[in-house]
């Protein structure tokens, strides 16, 4: 029976219309995955050495203190990035497959997910280091079994959480609360949880707890999955009552307003598009990693610009990447209307500019780390608006992946809130401003670096029309191909 599922998966991969770009992306992602695995492996040994030899701490105890955050962060990451176990379920329902078989296969796939495997790259080298320093083998093994059970608990917990829209915010909120309490020294939850993780190592019966929880979650998620395999349950399309919106105040944008009104509704009413807003909020906090000096390697001045680009450009990067794919579902309509491409594009451009400005204002919290930090942010904002806004639109013109805006409505559809691709493809846009800054910084002074980036940003405005014309040309030239590509459902 499983043979059929595997053959179906195989065919759906190789026969998908977007194979060429899909394959390239897969290789690209594969590279990053390997790199991440490699870094983790090095990290496993390096952290052990660091804790033991430099800080003279017990590596195991120290790691155990932080494991609670690791566990919760893993859950949040999964929620945002891990795809739900989907195989085209509807057509299988009527075939003589046992429902439990369908679900087992879907679940079996998640077991081998990258999100589960990646942890091994850290913990196996770390455990080997432990054993080499004469920690008893069977205890280290017990500890590992406990951790593996916890990782897989997350795997199944994620499946349950994915069906409920708001639960994850509760989890995130609790994490932030305890993190804050610990940071400000009121209450340190890790002292208590460290007992538990230490217990996994010391007492064999304690490692049964996560195993037990894991099995419980597996059964629970399995049952709810099987139970929901009905057209009017898990596979049902929920519709809620909505009302017509005017947004007439946007008419001041002139001709662009027609599209702007639509784009705002697009973002408000589609989970997939809404998540770009969520991403930009997350990226607002990204700078904390750099400006607090939390990570040593990021202390270099050039990294400041890198961080600042992300802090102000989260929305720009994640939304702009997929223009015009956001409109893929009704692209034939757009193409048969008398549309001025310039108005269409400038609507998206305005959205990105407004979002960047809002991010810049919100980022004023970084003034806490000194006005120079905020200066970097403002400079990066100018660069984002002047250069990156054009670059992402330009790059987006070549992206022909159809976006299924409604996917979030199917309980078993593509739940992924935002795309890993988006993040990876945005890396090149970082390099140029970093280079410019580095040139200014090392040749003359930091301010010269900022000035160079600012000038580049302002100069970017001059090219707005050129780039828009170029994009218009691409849209026209690629019209038939794009229409064809959007017709292929993923």
């Amino acid at each position, binding site marked *: 029976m499983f043979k059929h599922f595997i053959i179906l998966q195989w065919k759906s991969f190789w026969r998908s219309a977007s194979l060429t770009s899909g394959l390239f992306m897969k290789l690209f992602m594969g590279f990053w995955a390997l790199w991440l695995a490699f870094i983790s492996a090095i990290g496993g040994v390096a952290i052990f050495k660091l804790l033991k030899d430099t800080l003279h701490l017990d590596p195991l105890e120290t790691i155990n203190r932080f494991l609670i955050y690791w566990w919760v962060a893993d859950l949040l990451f999964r929620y945002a990035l891990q795809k739900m176990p989907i195989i085209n379920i509807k057509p299988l329902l009527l075939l003589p497959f046992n429902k439990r078989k369908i679900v087992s296969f879907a679940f079996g796939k998640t077991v081998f997910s990258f999100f589960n495997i990646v942890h091994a790259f850290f913990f196996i080298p770390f455990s080997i280091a432990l054993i080499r320093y004469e920690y008893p083998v069977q205890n280290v093994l017990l500890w590992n079994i406990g951790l593996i059970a916890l990782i897989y608990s997350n795997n199944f917990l994620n499946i349950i959480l994915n069906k409920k829209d708001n639960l994850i915010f509760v989890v995130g909120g609790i994490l932030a609360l305890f993190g804050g309490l610990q940071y400000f020294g009121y209450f340190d939850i890790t002292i208590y949880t460290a007992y538990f993780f230490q217990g996994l190592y010391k007492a064999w019966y304690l490692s049964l707890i996560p195993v037990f929880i894991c099995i419980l979650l597996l059964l629970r998620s399995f049952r709810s999955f099987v139970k929901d395999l009905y057209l009017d349950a898990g596979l049902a399309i929920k519709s809620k009552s*909505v009302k017509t919106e005017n947004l007439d105040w946007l008419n001041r944008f002139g001709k662009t307003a027609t599209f702007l009104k639509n784009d705002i509704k697009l973002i408000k009413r589609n989970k997939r598009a809404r998540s770009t807003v969520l991403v930009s909020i997350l990226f607002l906090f990204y700078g904390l990693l750099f400006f607090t000096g939390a990570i040593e390697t990021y202390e270099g001045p050039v990294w400041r610009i890198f961080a600042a680009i992300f802090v102000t450009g989260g929305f720009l990067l994640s939304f702009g990447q997929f223009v015009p794919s956001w409109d893929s579902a009704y692209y034939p309509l757009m193409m048969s209307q008398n549309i001025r491409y310039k108005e269409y594009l400038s609507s998206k451009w305005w959205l990105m500019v407004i979002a960047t400005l809002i991010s810049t204002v919100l980022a004023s919290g970084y003034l806490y780390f000194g006005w120079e930090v905020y200066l970097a942010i403002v400079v990066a904002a100018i660069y984002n608006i002047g250069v990156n806004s054009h670059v992402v639109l330009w790059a987006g013109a070549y992206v022909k992946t159809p976006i299924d805006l409604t996917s979030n409505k199917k309980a078993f559809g593509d739940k992924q809130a935002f795309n890993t691709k988006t993040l990876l493809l945005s890396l090149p846009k970082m390099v140029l401003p970093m280079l410019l800054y580095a040139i200014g910084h090392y040749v003359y002074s930091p301010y010269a670096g900022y000035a160079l980036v600012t000038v580049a940003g302002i100069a970017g405005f001059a090219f707005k029309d050129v780039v828009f014309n170029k994009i218009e040309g691409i849209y026209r030239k690629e019209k038939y191909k794009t229409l064809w590509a959007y017709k292929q459902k993923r």
Partner: protein
Amino acid sequence: MITVHNFTKTYTGNTVLTIDHLEIQKGNSFGLVGNNGAGKTTLFSAVLDLIKPTTGHIENNGIKVSESEEWKSVTSAFIDETFLIGYLTAEEYFYFIGELRGQNKADVNGLLSRFEDFFHGEVLGQKKYLRDLSKGNQKKVGIIAALIGNPEVIVLDEPFANLDPTTQIRLKKILKELSANPEVTVMISSHDLMHVTEVCERIVVLDKGEVVKDLTTSAATLKELEEHFNK
């Protein structure tokens, strides 16, 4: 109004549509019938410049559709659900199309009020996005949206499919009114021979990508079509 010149469309060696010459007069109501795969949607998509002909070209009002976009302001169409914006309510969608076609809200409301019986109270004020409407109601929205902005060419692919009997009868009335207007050229396709003979002045039968019959509708047309498809 619409002229097809030496048109062929080939997909990987398979020719799916060949039309040497086809001219549709202004004010005509033109019906296209044919079995699945006969090339009906291919022809309509090519008229709208959504696919590129392998050879030949199509003119709309004397303009080559692939070279200029002037024809777009006088042409409207509803082919399938990719002409609907799923996350809008019906009203928002009508106003959006209206704005693209230079109509303000009052114009659009005026037009909609004429079709209240066609909507049968299931489209306007529904508190639902288009994607949550039934197939039939989505079709109603698409058809009426294609009438916004006084288009001179209206292309509807299988407008009768998915509609309930009452709506089919009302749609026939609407289409007859449109074809009575000498300024409006209507192109429809249908699998229902009865509807198409009732509504269209001229009927072309496609078979495996070729025109096999070109009839001016008369009392004998329905019988002739039935005989053709009964072979």
